[in-house]
């Protein structure tokens, strides 16, 4: 169905309310594609109405949160409507005794941390969100963004207990629940995490929280060789210490460990760990600087940022190859995952993917120039691609949501 931009604007104003709708501008571009209209709905009903209108008219909609990961991956085929979800803000329920919080998807991670980190509750959502506190909760889900503390607490996949979402046709549905253990029905949370806004628009999330540790300490081991990395990782995994991050930095050849807990336990365990591994415990001031640098590190210089994952025991082999790849890496050493930064040119991207796949792993594109995606991202196998297409076809048969953003010729 052909509609003029003006007609689309009129329909959207009726659906989401006039104040929620404005024309798209250059800064609204999604991986270079400029939306006709930007809709910032004030509530779930307006999200549903805007989506239903778009689907019935055949318009393409791209959801966005803070925009931090919006340009990652392939550009959308079309973007008639940019659905800005930052209007869905605020905590709906925080039951401190249950360590569970339900919030609207447009709330930022920083605001949520403030809400659950009150002196009375002292809790925290344990995601580093690629070091971007301005990220929204919906964005965390869409991108599966994690960080160094994944070693101790997992990723949004492990923390998302339930979600409310809107399908492309405007249907509002829920999955999971508000309890930490739940096997009733299919777990759609897992599919939503990392789906990049192609299956549904997440509008509310229920997340598992952790007690915010009273104290933490960083231990740094210098001069780590790639060959020694597996042995060090084994030692860390077996050491009598609660390690919540174990990040290997290349080419610095440095290992940064984070220990968390009570003041007494943290000091004792960090000291013992440093002695065992031949490292040093950083002072609080140095530790704070080191940690914030660690979070910013993959993003602070130009170049392509690529997510890598290898069998954990082979992280050392990946580190060994980084010299010839002329890349820098920040790897969660115990898990075999992390980010690698290389020059954003075809040859460098090809080499990186080749190296990672050769040691039994795979790559995903984070910050990569358009066209770099299919070079560097590991192609899912045909059966997986078929199931992905089927899921898209079942949940969004008109192809309204973020068309083309999955790459690989998927709708």
């Amino acid at each position, binding site marked *: 169905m052909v509609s003029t931009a003006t007609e689309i604007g009129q329909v959207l104003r009726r659906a989401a309310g006039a104040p929620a709708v404005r024309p798209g501008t250059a800064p609204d571009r999604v991986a270079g594609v400029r939306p006709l209209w930007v809709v910032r709905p004030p509530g779930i009903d307006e999200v549903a109405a805007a989506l239903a209108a778009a689907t019935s008219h055949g318009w393409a909609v791209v959801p966005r949160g803070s925009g931090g990961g919006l340009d990652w991956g392939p550009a959308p085929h079309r973007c008639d409507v940019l659905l800005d979800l930052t209007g869905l803000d605020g905590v709906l329920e925080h*039951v*401190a*005794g*249950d*360590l*569970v919080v339900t919030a609207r998807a447009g709330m930022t991670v920083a605001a949520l941390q403030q809400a659950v980190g009150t002196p009375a509750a*002292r809790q925290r959502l344990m995601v580093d969100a690629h070091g971007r506190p301005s990220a929204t909760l919906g964005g965390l889900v869409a991108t*599966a963004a994690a960080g160094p503390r994944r070693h101790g607490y*997992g990723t949004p*996949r492990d923390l998302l207990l339930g979600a409310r979402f809107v*399908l492309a046709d405007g*249907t509002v*549905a829920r999955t999971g*629940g508000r*309890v930490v*253990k739940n*096997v*009733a*029905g*299919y*777990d*759609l949370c*897992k*599919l939503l*995490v*990392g*789906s990049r806004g192609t*299956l549904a628009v997440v509008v509310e999330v229920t997340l598992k929280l*952790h*007690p915010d*540790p*009273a104290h933490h300490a960083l231990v740094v081991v210098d001069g780590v060789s790639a060959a020694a990395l597996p042995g060090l990782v*084994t030692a860390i995994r*077996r050491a*009598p*210490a*609660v390690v919540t991050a174990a990040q290997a930095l290349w080419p610095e050849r440095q290992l940064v460990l984070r220990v968390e*807990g*009570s003041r*007494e*336990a943290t000091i*004792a*365990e960090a000291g013992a760990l440093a002695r065992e591994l031949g490292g040093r415990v950083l002072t609080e001031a140095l530790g704070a600087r080191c940690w914030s640098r660690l979070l910013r590190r993959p993003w602070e210089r130009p170049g392509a940022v690529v997510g890598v*994952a290898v*069998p*954990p*025991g082979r992280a050392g082999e990946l580190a060994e190859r980084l010299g010839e790849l002329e890349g820098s890496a920040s790897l969660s050493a115990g898990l*075999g*995952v992390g980010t690698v930064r290389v020059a954003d040119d075809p040859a460098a991207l090809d080499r990186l993917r080749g190296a990672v796949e050769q040691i039994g792993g795979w790559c995903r594109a984070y910050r990569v120039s358009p066209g770099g995606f299919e070079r560097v*991202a590991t192609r899912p196998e045909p*059966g*997986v*691609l078929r*199931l*992905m297409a*089927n*899921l898209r*076809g*079942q*949940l969004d048969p008109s192809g309204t949501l973020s068309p083309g953003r999955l790459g690989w010729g998927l709708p």
Partner: protein
Amino acid sequence: MTPSLDAAVGLPPAVASALRRVVGSAWLLTDPAACTAYACDGLTSWRARPLAVVLPQTTDETQQVVRVLAASRIPFVARGAGTGLSGGALPRADGVVVGLSRMRAILGVHLQDERVTVEPGVTNQAVTLAVTAAGYRYAPDPSSQQVCTIGGNLAENSGGAHCLKLGFTTHHVTGATLVLADGEIVRLGGRALDPPGFDLLGAVVGSEGTLGIVTEVVLRVVPRPAAVATLVAAFDQAAAAGAAVSAIIARGVIPAALEMMDRTALEAIEAAAHPDYPPGDAVLLIELDGPPGRCAEEAALVAACCRAAGATACRLAADGEEASRFWRGRKAAFAAMGRISPHYYVQDGVVPRTRLPEVLAAIRQLEAEHGLRVANVFHAGDGNLHPLVLFDGSRPEQRRRAEVVATRILDACLAVGGSLTGEHGIGRDKLCQMPKQFSVADQMVMHRLRAAFDPQGLCNPGKVLPTPRLCGEGPGVYRPHPAERAQVAERW
């Protein structure tokens, strides 16, 4: 001879011979007596004798078996050890059981990667045994771990007493080979994390065998903790024990396990296992693990929380022997019920931890109203209740009341924002209760997810998602299933 329904609607001879060609005639069971052994899982109240049982030995054979069945549109259900408690492995009278008990090889132990690759028929405990000497373990530990299989664990997203800190099956599976309902083989994930594309593996774990048959699984194993501290605390009232649970979690301690037993459960346990718990109306069994210093620190904190909540006694196991005695009591709980009741109905529901006291009080109320006893022995740390409704099966009216009480307990769980099931699954048993927890739209999305994997609906149909045919148009209305009317399935 009575005309047999098997003869009327039996396995078509062409299908039987095609299946024999795949697995060899020894591994296709069509004899009614042999098939009857597969008529139910651990929930024996739902039974249906399948047309046949086929036992493939490899992924390839499974693929060919599924292709043969799909070509004739014959529904099938995969089955492990059959220890499930929700009728998830209940066959259809017009369907086939694909038994995976011959696929029980541990294919590889990769300690550097903290991974073990297994076939689906490997038992849960065998995985831990394969890595014990190296100082590792497989974390999920359902109480049937000696016999239950990894394939079944994956289908049900099994938990266990020790999943409070380390998570459920879904957190410990990194890869799987899946045979789809049309016979296509898909490899999901592997030894590395974060595979490209949607997290399909996350959707398959816990899907109760409705999205395909898993023929190979990559599991994560974890190092054993350096130290373990085991405590028991006794309380005058179950509600006080429930409050202690919340207090412990709120203080920032995540125990490895946090189990609760109430008075009725304790009566049976003390008689059967002599764990020598301090006397009380409720006992908490708490296990902490980690570095030795931290373990001791947390044990002191937990003891303080229990005392503040009104514990009458709090005892730290002096050694490993005393700790195992404490656990022996908890582990003997279900079997011990025989000491105080001829039959019991196991319920499985979840509540937010902070609502434990009021739900326990509601259960007391139901006991009084219906004149039946309920023993509570459960995973208190994650709010997962396992009330055992005691009754005398020789009195049909008691059996009916027990069912009513079990259902009302679930209603009480849902009323405080809980869930129909924490680890046993929906299966066939709770199928018709799904609308109590999920809206029509929620269920529609699940139907679409299922259709993306199995558009023909051949893979374990009639589980997880209610249909008007199985549950009636409205909730709660019982209508005899066509199979029941035809006497090929019974409802006990």
